[in-house]
Structure formats: C-alpha cells, structure tokens
C-alpha cells in the first residue's frame, strides 16, 4: 500500500495530471503539490502525486555509491 511509483507528467488538466509510468498512463491528483509542470517527474501513490523527484539528487545518490568504491575499507574506530 505504501508502494509509490515514479512517473513523468505528460499533461495537466485542472487538478489532475496524466503521468506516464513505464509506458502506461495513469491519472494522478495534484491536490497535494504546488507548481507541478509538464515534463516533471513525480512520485505517484494511490492516485496522487506525493512529491516531485529531484533529478540532481537522484544522480548524486548514484555518484556517492560509485565514490565508495575508491575508499579503503574503513577500520573500526577505537572505542
């Protein structure tokens, strides 16, 4: 039930957006968010857009994981 899916906003009419999720289109209420634009990515949950997705943070997460690789395994800090 707490499953939410990312999708791209392809059109908006009043308070309802059509969001493309992996090829299929679903409706999402925009009542919980201000300033949603066509082309934005949103997190859709039981028929509502819960939050905008930050492209920058999404990429940064992946960078952080890649950077981990170059770090030596950390020794436990002495207590």
């Amino acid at each position, binding site marked *: *039930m707490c*499953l939410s899916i990312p999708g791209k906003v392809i059109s908006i009419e009043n308070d309802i957006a059509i969001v493309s999720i992996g090829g299929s289109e679903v409706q999402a209420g925009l009542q919980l968010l201000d300033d949603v634009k066509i082309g934005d990515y949103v997190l859709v949950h039981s*028929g*509502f857009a819960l939050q905008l997705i930050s492209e920058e943070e*999404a990429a940064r*997460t992946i960078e952080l994981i890649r950077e981990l690789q170059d770090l030596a395994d*950390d020794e436990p800090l002495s207590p």
Partner: protein
Amino acid sequence: MRYITEYRDKELVRILVDKIRAYRGPKVRFMEVCGGHTMAIQKFGIPSLLPDNVALVSGPGCPVCVTSLQFVDHAIALGRQDDFIITTYGDLIRVPGSSSSLEQEKSRGSDIRMVYSTLESLAIARENPGKKVIFLGIGFETTAPASAAALVQARKENLRNFYVLSAHKIMPPAMAAIVTEDVKLNGYLAPGHVSTITGAGIYRDISEKFGLPVVVAGFEPADILQSIHMLLEQLRTGNISVEIQYKRVVTPEGNLKAQKMMQDVFRLRDDWWRGLGILPLSGLGVSDAYADWDAERAFDIDVEPSQEPEGCICGDVLKGVSHPTECILFDTECNPANPVGTCMVSEEGACQAFYKYGVE
C-alpha cells in the same frame, strides 16, 4: 533517468555489498519499518547478500497488518445497511474480520467496491446521490493525505453522501514504542514514502532519545543496501543521527502542503496497533471541522467486540520479536490463499513476503 532501473544496477549493488561485507563489528540488527521495504527486501533477496553479523527484521509499517479487526467488523456492519456503498483499497478486502470479510460480504450482496484512489470514491458518491458512500481510510502518512484531499474536496463541493471511516495512523509513536518495549535494535531503516510527506525531521526525537541511527531509505536494491551501509557507518563513527538516503524525494521538512491539509482534516487520538496495543496520540480521527463527513460520528452502529485469530503471532512479528517461521500456523494452516492473520493477507505483511520470496 527512469528512477527505478538505475538503482537495480548490478555494479552499484556489488560495490555496496562489498562495503557491507567489510563490516567487522559485533552483530547488529536493523529494523525496516515499512511494509514496502519488507516486500522489496524479500523480493530482491537482500538478506542473502548480507554477512552473518548484519540482520534485518521487519517492523510495524504494514497498514493492513496493524489495523484492528474491530475496524473491519465496523466496515462490514456499515456495508450491511441499506443504501450504503463501501469503498476501499484492495488490500483490506480479504482481511478476515471476526466472522466474515469484506470479500465474503460482497458475495452476500453488500455493495463493496475496490478503488485505486479516494478520487474514485468521490466519483462514486457523485454518481449515487441516493446512497451513502464510505471510504475506509487505512495506512500511515503516505495514504492519509489522499483521504484528507478527498475530504477537502467533499466539503468544497458540499457532497453530503461521502464519508471517511478512519483508521489512519502515524509512524513515530510505533517506532518509539518498539524501542521502549526493549526489542533489541541497532538502527532504523525509516519508511521512505511516509517521509516524503512528513519529512525526515520527525525521526529526530527517536534518534536522539534512544541514541539510535536512523536512515530514511528508498525501495530499490541499491537504495536499501546504501542505507544499510549508512547505518553501519553511523555505528562505526559514533555520529548517530537521522540521515536521508532517499534524497530524490525526501527532504528534512517534507511536503508542507500535504501536512497542512492533514492538520485541518484530522486530529490526533490514541489508537490500537496489533502487537503494540494502544499507543497515545498515534491515530488520526476526523477533525471537528469535518465531523459531517466522519462515518464514525454520522452512523451510530453496534459492532460486536472482535476476536483475534487463535494461534496467530502476527503481533509479535510486527514488533520484530518473532519471525514468521516461528508461527506454528505458517505454511500449515496459514498461507496467502487462506490467510489466518493480517500479516499473511497483505502483500506488505512479513508473513506473506517471507512465504513468497523468503529463503531460510
């Protein structure tokens, strides 16, 4: 970016697994609070990637699992009245109440409809002005805003035949209760989608009070593994705090518009949780301003005291005290086709997740 596949990348998973396996400290146990995490963790086989000294345990964040049978019985009683339509998310329909389920009631003639969204419930109310349409509001801060938005809309339109029966709950009191009950934990993987609404700030008290690492986690394999690594790093460095791994949608302050709507529409009240009992100010009742749309207040109906199924230890599973396989009914009398308890009914329940994907 599709915001899904990138985080299933084998290379990222390998980097993280190597890092986690390098952990040399004492055995630690982290709780994933959210049922969505439980499902993802089993589905992606995360436990098999972890070393012996890092364990995950499921928590109370499965909406259907913690909901009382009394609530289901209440919904059934309303559904048996003339001219009532009960609308609900699919998850609830198969939950066995004391003597029946919504699914059985439907086959006996009650008008019970599954909806994907509260907006559909509103549409049903508009199309059926002669009927009373009840939406069964269950779930945490992720689903509560959807109920709130529907109530705001109903009031705006003056739609007088739409009601919410609320069993909505909030997460932090349950997370605090588990620590106070002395369930041995070394950190929390905090619910990612709840946090998109609430913000990560709501876990600060728990982290500070109990000195417990908290990481708000996403739902893909790399998200979950990175979160586990962040928890281990907090333990290693001793810098215990609330961190956000799922930064692409979670901020410290959350979705303020949704929070405001919830504050207008709901009021905090004491509520019962399976496994944890009554927790102070952990539930969301409909506020006075929206009393006319509150099914509890609008319809005075007798509901018999409900009885929990015998032998089911779902309550202990939800607290992280017992594993599903410790239940004598697991895979004997209880399975997803014939669930005895709520932890087997729901896809997000630990019993069902483990039944479907788990390996010993």
